[in-house]
């Protein structure tokens, strides 16, 4: 055990992980689009660190899929031999063969490699409706030197997030209401200008960060008749300053997670905010959706991390006058902004907490005889307030799934099950492979404390029948986090559609909720003619004092269904009803968007909804920020 706890090795491995996250991107080429007119920002904000090589170019389609997840060069496919592989060179899994995936895929979904449903290869420009431009606005924006474009690809790219129905439609080449124009402000003042002009010309604005929304938040309301302008914040991506005395950094809101971490790392710091979408999602997006990062146990969720927020609204700019760490000045105005989902204005700059890069990181994993025991252990860990940076508990189906992603070669990826089998006879006797479940752990801090902490957690686990199952298994789990998102596209090539969704729920209801929601999904699928039982699985991804965050995956084979997306939506709807009936929240971190807004009144009461409406009416009386999320 002690052999691999060398500090510098661990620092290196932490860096390596961050590099993986960041991807090995070349600096993107100069933007070619004629319509773009990049300009220096005229603002007088101090700018010690200009935007360094960012992972996301203005023309995102150059490196990212227009109709699927992530980088164009990275995808799962079944090669000629029928083996699954993951292409590209960005991830640990890249270039590897995954021999068990096919069997798992066919066995789990009743799918067949002969039955393909390939996506439309490229965007047919003729399918894109012509833009409805507000010429006066265009003129004035150009005069103000704001970069803009009404190129069909640029517009389509910003017309969606990553909900199933959005991606499914794109794969079929169906384009609905999309923004009429994209603008790229390069600083706060640009945004102020854009908002002013949009108000003046009564144009609808939709802020666009990383485009990773999974709540239909980025979808253009079909009933919107005004010109719709997407504000792409990607060019507002600088760390404006770092305050080492107070450990804060002042950052432009368009910065994407991986850039933010990498750049802070260079100064020896991190934010520790790591949502699974951090390769692409932005600081502004996090604030706008109340995002949650994997390591929130140490660093907190986005609302704990922000110290100061600046937002440009049709009424003007909203911000606080100081950076006091806590204030009693009436309701916290930050909480009108956090979770506002682009309905009130554009978050332009954020001051957030930073921490020195932890000296030491250690992964871990625990096997439990069943999910109940696992949940009981997490509950105890939360009770003793000793949760590691991350602790996640997979149910048995997910455990099996993880096993299916085992690559052919590579030491770190030795199969969990093989590893288990080794001491199965001695140690894991009595563990039923169809019931056991796994928790993955990540500890961070100084070495001694981490080791102490680790022992404490493993001791608790032992009380619930949990056995330590090695660092590799833990690390593997976290590695897979970023590639799992690519899997849905593979499924969609073969009649399999799916989605994930989440909730938060008091501890005493975790098990009931998990069981009932999973079962509801299975039943609903059956009732709606889904031929093969769906994959319906969950994990507990966060622990709190009073409850937990639960994350569900749900996917099924839609062969034989005439309206798969409709069926899918009905099932997801039923699953959400089930969540609410079991005391779960409408959302822990994905937000409401348009997908879940029918339940808002029930969730926050009529008065609560009225309050939010009143704020909206005051801040944006003409509904310039007209994405119609939330309310």
């Amino acid at each position, binding site marked *: 055990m002690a052999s691999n706890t060398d500090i510098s090795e661990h620092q290196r491995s932490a860096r390596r992980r961050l590099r993986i996250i960041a991807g090995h991107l070349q600096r993107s080429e100069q933007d070619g689009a004629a319509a773009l007119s990049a300009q220096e920002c005229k603002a007088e904000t101090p700018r010690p660190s200009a935007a360094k090589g960012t992972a996301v170019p203005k023309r995102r389609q150059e490196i990212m899929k227009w109709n699927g997840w992530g980088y164009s060069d990275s995808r799962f496919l079944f090669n000629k031999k029928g083996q699954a592989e993951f292409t590209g060179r960005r991830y640990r899994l890249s270039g590897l063969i995954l021999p068990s995936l096919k069997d798992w895929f066919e066995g789990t979904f009743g799918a067949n490699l002969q039955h393909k449903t390939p996506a439309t290869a490229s965007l047919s420009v003729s399918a894109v409706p012509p833009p409805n431009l507000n010429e006066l606005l265009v003129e004035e924006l150009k005069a103000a030197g704001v970069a803009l474009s009404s190129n069909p690809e640029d517009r389509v790219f910003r017309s969606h997030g990553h909900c199933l129905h959005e991606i499914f439609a794109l794969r079929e080449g169906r384009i609905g209401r999309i923004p009429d124009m994209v603008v790229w402000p390069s600083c706060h003042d640009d945004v102020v200008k854009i908002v002013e002009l949009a108000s003046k010309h009564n144009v609808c604005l939709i802020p666009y960060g990383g485009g990773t929304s999974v709540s239909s938040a980025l979808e253009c309301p079909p009933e919107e008749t005004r010109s719709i302008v997407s504000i792409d914040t990607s060019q507002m991506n600088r760390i404006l300053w770092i305050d080492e005395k107070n450990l804060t950094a002042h950052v432009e809101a368009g910065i994407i997670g991986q850039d933010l971490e990498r750049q802070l790392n260079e100064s020896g710091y991190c934010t520790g905010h790591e949502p699974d979408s951090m390769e692409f999602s932005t600081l502004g997006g996090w604030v706008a959706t109340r995002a949650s990062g994997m390591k929130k146990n140490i660093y907190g969720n986005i609302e704990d991390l922000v110290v100061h927020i600046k937002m440009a609204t049709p009424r003007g700019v909203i911000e606080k006058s100081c950076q006091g760490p806590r204030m009693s000045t009436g309701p916290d105005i930050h909480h009108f902004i956090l979770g506002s989902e682009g309905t009130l204005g554009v978050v332009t700059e954020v001051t957030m907490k930073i921490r020195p890069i932890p000296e030491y990181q250690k992964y871990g994993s625990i096997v439990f005889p069943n999910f109940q025991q696992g949940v009981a252990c997490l509950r105890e860990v939360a009770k003793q307030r000793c949760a590691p940076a991350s602790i996640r508990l997979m149910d048995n189906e997910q455990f099996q799934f993880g096993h299916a992603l085992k690559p052919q070669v590579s030491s770190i990826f030795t199969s969990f099950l093989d590893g288990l089998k080794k001491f199965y006879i001695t140690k894991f006797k009595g563990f039923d492979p169809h019931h056991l479940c796994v928790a993955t752990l990540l500890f961070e801090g100084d070495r001694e404390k981490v080791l102490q902490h680790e022992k404490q957690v493993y001791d608790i686990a032992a009380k619930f029948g949990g056995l330590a199952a090695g660092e590799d298994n833990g690390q593997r789990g976290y590695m897979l986090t970023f590639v799992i998102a690519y899997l849905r596209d593979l499924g969609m090539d073969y009649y399999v559609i799916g989605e994930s969704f989440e909730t938060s729920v008091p501890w*005493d*209801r975790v098990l*009931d*909720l998990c*069981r*009932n929601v999973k*079962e*509801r999904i299975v039943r609903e699928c059956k009732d709606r003619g889904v031929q093969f039982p769906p994959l319906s699985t969950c994990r507990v991804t966060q622990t709190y004092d009073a409850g937990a965050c639960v994350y569900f995956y749900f996917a099924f084979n839609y062969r034989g269904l005439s309206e798969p997306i409709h069926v899918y939506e009905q099932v997801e709807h039923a699953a959400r009803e089930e969540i*609410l*009936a*079991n*005391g779960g929240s409408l959302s822990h971190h994905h937000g409401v968007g348009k997908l879940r807004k029918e339940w808002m009144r029930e969730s926050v009461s009529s008065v609560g909804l009225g309050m939010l409406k009143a704020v909206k009416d005051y801040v944006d009386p003409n509904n310039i920020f007209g994405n119609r999320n939330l309310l």
Partner: protein
Amino acid sequence: MDRVLRAHALKPENFFDVLEERRRGSDISHALRTFSAQVPPVPVSALNRMVQESQYLHYVISEIAAETGEPYECVKDEATSILEEMSQNLQLSFIRLMAFALTKVFKRLFSSIRVNEDGLARLQQAIQEHPVILVPNHRSYIDFLVLSYIMFTYDLSVPVIAAGIPLMGMSLVGEVLRRSGAFFIRRAIGSDKLYWAVLSEYVRTIVRTGFAPLEFFVEGLRSRTLKSLKPKLGMMQMVLEPFFKGEVYDITLVPISISYDRVLEESLLAHELLGVPKPSETTRGLLKARRVLEENYGCMHVYFGNPVSVRELAEGRIQRGQYNLIPRDLPLKLSANLQEFVGDVAHLVVHLQERGSVLSPWSLMALILLQNPDDLDWNVFIQKTLRLRTLASQLGAQIDWPAQLSDLEVMSSSMALHHAVVQSENGRVRLVEKEGPGPITQEEAVLRRASSVLMCASYRNQALHVFTRPALVAAAMAMAPSHSKEDVFGRFRFLQDLLANEFIFIPGHTVQDFEEGCSGLLRCGALSIQDHALSVIGEAQDTVVFLSGILKPFIETYQVVLEVLGKETFQTFTEKRFVPDIRAATVKLILSGEVRSYECISSDTLKNALSALVRMEAASKCQVADQIEYRVNQNVLRRIRDTLDGSVASEVPLYSRL
């Protein structure tokens, strides 16, 4: 609920005799064979520990300790001893022993025990999915033994059973039953807070953990009249709570209809109804009942109904989210909406039990006999019974009329089985009256006669539910000022209201019941409906008269009660005196020839009548000293009487709901 009722329309199913194989094979190897059903997921001891350590019980114990000032530990000890008194101790080895013994007994008692195997197949499926609640009707002490026996025989998880405390009192038997899965509940479970808490947590824990199928009698008691009883809601509530609180995904209710050609307790039935106290359930009592073993009880039918999904019933009616803002373990009263749901479900289950029950030829014969109590020509008897059989099947009854025998043979063998009740002599059929010692008074003679009538009536009662709704429509037509649908429905509603303790109707289903009654009459060609008016089809006049005649003994009893209570002397009376006094008055009326039906002195019907009057506010109940006293409201009483006699219009009917 309507959807469920429609989905549960009865399809003909085949019945198989469980005993047949036993008569051929070895009893001991049946008892010892590998039993492949699911075993309880946790041991009995763990189950009890879960109950004891539950948060809910902790709350209740603290509450009681605070209220009474007793130390927490004392209350807790008390809870523990309640739990010990209550809990079952299901053991497979005991089940085997029981199976062995029961095979012997059953073979002796019954010519066959017939079960619908399709129902068992459905049950087996259900057991694999969600916690299953078996809800049989209750007609005999051996009901639950038979059920466990069948479950064992078919490799189904043996249930745990909520049984009455008196059974536990039988020293040895109590322990045997415990090990066969019975747990014991006191009669008045509602009044003792701690008792309720322990019991309800025990029941919920069984459901939550899916320990084993749970069996309970929703009617609460064994029906002395063999007629369905108004369901008791306590157990049903406990059983459903885990669903309300999201602790289980769904709960499956399986209504089970048990019907006997002849019940073991036959000789007790009439006595109980005439106020002769029954022997208490002691081991000695049971041993004395050895005589019972020497008799033949014919055939027994057990119909396992379609599993009912509580989730499906609750859809659109129940907000499980109502528990989102409170700890689910808090001892709180069920919300009104949930209580209503529990009541409806309980009634629904009784209704489904009725639908699933199999009529014996004898129950049809009994019906005919009671309509012709004095004596009856054999051939007429046969004819009438066969006509009734046709009518019953038109109305959807399952009848066990052996096809391989001639009608004469079927009826003769029924007569033979019931020789204690009915006899034929010189081609005439008549009820048998028990010979008693010495000369008797006129009053005693009435009671003797009544005892035969009531015994016979009990068997008729097993068939009543088939006819109730059409009969109510028929009776309503006879009372109504016109045959417009509105008027008939008004009377129907009045009668249903009045007789709601007599027959089981799902609350709020009056319209559906009325429609069902009408369509029954349409189906047997007795009725036509045109322009919102009902009319009796000429040649079917006697069918309608016959049907309304079925209700006559009940209506007559209610009329007698109304009559007697209308007298000065009955302005107020105590609960204790009610049955004896009314009975005495009624006996006089029978002797004077003013009342014809001997059923009018059944304590069961008299009590039902009283609670109907209280419900309809013709009498009010109050506690005076240590007595319960009733006060009659003459105005309301008169109005009810007049409506029943058909002389005034009942209050405006809510016909718009049709």
